[in-house]
């Protein structure tokens, strides 16, 4: 399976994402610069964390209009797995690939620590490697992760099981402690915590690796003929 890591000016978790795929998962991965316009040949798209375009105006607001974004939207519409982490999640929100928006953390602090997440839905492309309701430890590092969504959309998210991860504590003021959501179709996931920073024991924790192994397993089941 071949992944693209989209690199915006100001991305700073692109290398973490790259090595999570190359060394953690053992699959192919390439950086794709934001000025490119095609994602042909890639089976999955990863939007990394960081501060794209300096977070000027709003997090993700300028990156959302990067030349590569129509190709990211095409990939999402064609059903390819698209994962946005942290700033990548913010870009997906701004692009309208996921509903809602991010505000400054409720206490206005940049939060950088490992938190407990609850796997709310393990029947997604990204989470079959976890148990339903499993608690996992994943690092967060963000100043604007306070997820906001109106009541009507929140009800829809819950009804369709689109809430994939919740914080097991009040981390940043997010509605319903939401940490990660997916689109209705189930192939686009945005999450504030960083699974790519938790893919091997040397990093202190490998509980994020299952996000990537889940993507791979699901891709193989639909793309590789079994003998």
């Amino acid at each position, binding site marked *: 399976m071949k992944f693209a890591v989209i690199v915006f000016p100001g991305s700073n978790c692109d290398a973490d994402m790259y090595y999570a795929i190359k060394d953690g998962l053992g699959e192919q991965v390439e950086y794709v610069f934001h000025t490119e316009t095609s994602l042909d040949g890639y089976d999955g798209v990863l939007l990394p964390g960081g501060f794209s375009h300096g977070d000027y*105006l709003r997090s993700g607001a*300028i990156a959302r209009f990067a030349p590569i974004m129509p190709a990211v939207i095409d990939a999402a519409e064609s059903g390819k797995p698209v994962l946005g982490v942290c700033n990548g999640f913010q870009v997906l929100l701004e692009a309208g690939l996921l509903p809602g*928006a991010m*505000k400054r*953390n409720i206490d*206005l602090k940049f939060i950088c620590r490992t938190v407990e997440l609850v796997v709310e839905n393990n029947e997604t492309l990204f989470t079959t490697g976890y148990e339903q309701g499993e608690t996992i430890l994943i690092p967060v590092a963000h100043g604007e992760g*306070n997820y906001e969504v*109106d009541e009507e959309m929140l009800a829809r998210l819950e009804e369709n099981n689109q809430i994939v991860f919740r914080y097991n504590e009040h981390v940043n*003021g997010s509605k319903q402690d939401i940490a990660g959501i997916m689109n209705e179709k189930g192939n686009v996931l945005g999450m504030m915590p960083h699974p790519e920073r938790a893919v091997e024991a040397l990093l202190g924790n490998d509980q994020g690796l299952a996000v990537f192994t889940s993507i791979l397993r699901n891709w193989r089941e639909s793309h590789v003929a079994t003998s």
Partner: protein
Amino acid sequence: MYKVKVYVTLRESVLDPQGVAVKGALHTMDYNEVMDVRIGKYLELQLENVDNLETRVKEMCEKLLANTVIEDYRFDVEEVIPS
């Protein structure tokens, strides 16, 4: 030439964490009459004369300058007479 002043604020229905913090600071300074603070953004655009100026500024606001999921915007248009 025109100067357009754009004001972007969080919607009334959305809690503004920065506004709450500033209100708290004003209260500690004994400005207890402050009932609410909302923090927003102010943008100034210089525009050439174009047709549909207001429509185009509205588009700019909705597409980029404001995130209408959580923010409201308004703008004033002033004609600038070159001196």
